[in-house]
């Protein structure tokens, strides 16, 4: 269960740093770094570089992503930016533009 929630209708402009999970349903501009998982929900807008343990995107993300474990772009996601992670999945129906680096 996420302990930090940026709900729909909330806008954060700046830097978010945390050791716990983050769920974004609203808007984040700036930078987002979490030790655990980050979920960008459907309808959310993130214009930020994201550093996290893992990342699930169902909303809109513009920025570079670095995840320790995995990045999952779900159907309906819209991602522009470079993705670097051990594992990356892109579901059918996800829009994506950027480089993928899986450290082969």
């Amino acid at each position: 269960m996420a302990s930090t929630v940026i709900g729909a209708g909330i806008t954060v402009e700046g830097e978010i740093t945390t050791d716990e999970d983050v769920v974004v349903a609203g808007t984040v501009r700036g930078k987002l770094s979490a030790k655990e998982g980050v979920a960008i929900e459907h309808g959310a807008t993130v214009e930020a570089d994201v550093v996290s343990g893992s990342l699930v995107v169902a909303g809109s993300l513009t920025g570079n992503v670095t995840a320790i474990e995995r990045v999952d772009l779900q159907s309906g996601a819209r991602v522009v930016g470079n993705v670097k992670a051990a594992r990356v999945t892109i579901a059918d129906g996800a829009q994506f533009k950027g480089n993928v680096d899986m450290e082969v």
Partner: protein
Amino acid sequence: MAANGNVSVIGRTTRVRGRITGAVDLEVQGFVDGEVAVAGDVTVDAHGMVGASIQGRRLVVRGAVRGDLLGEESVLLEDGARVVGDVRAPRVAIAPGALVRGFVETGEGERGAARTARVAAAATPARPPAAVVPARAPAAAAPPAPASKPAPKAAPALAVAGGAAGTNHAPHRRPPPPVVPALKKAKGQLAKKRER
């Protein structure tokens, strides 16, 4: 805890540097170093810390806030709250155990009341007035008695710099130097009043 639906939570280990705006409720359990302005309710948890002003419909504070609190409806400072800043809302409640340092205004104060509030806040015996009083005494006593230390140095420099701006009465917050020109103008009267 009602961590459902439209509640946004800044968790315990989360640190936000920047602005938080929005139309819904917000709960701060972590650290926010930036302005918070939402249309909904804001709760600052016992572990929460906010380093800037908070604006919302109803504010409940159990943690630390360094900044002004502005509530559309109410501000509730509960046990454990530590607030350094002005508190303004139609209804303000300060529970036993809450610590506040700042100006508090209840009722439908117009937004323009901010100015009055700031003046009043400056007049509270918390900080600078203490600096103003000693500054006057040496300045008035400076010409006859060569005993005082900072005034003789400051006064000539300010006589040049502050001559044109002599009418600009320094506010209470300022450190001693700006106070001197204002006093210099009225020095004669002051000296009479004080010494006789």
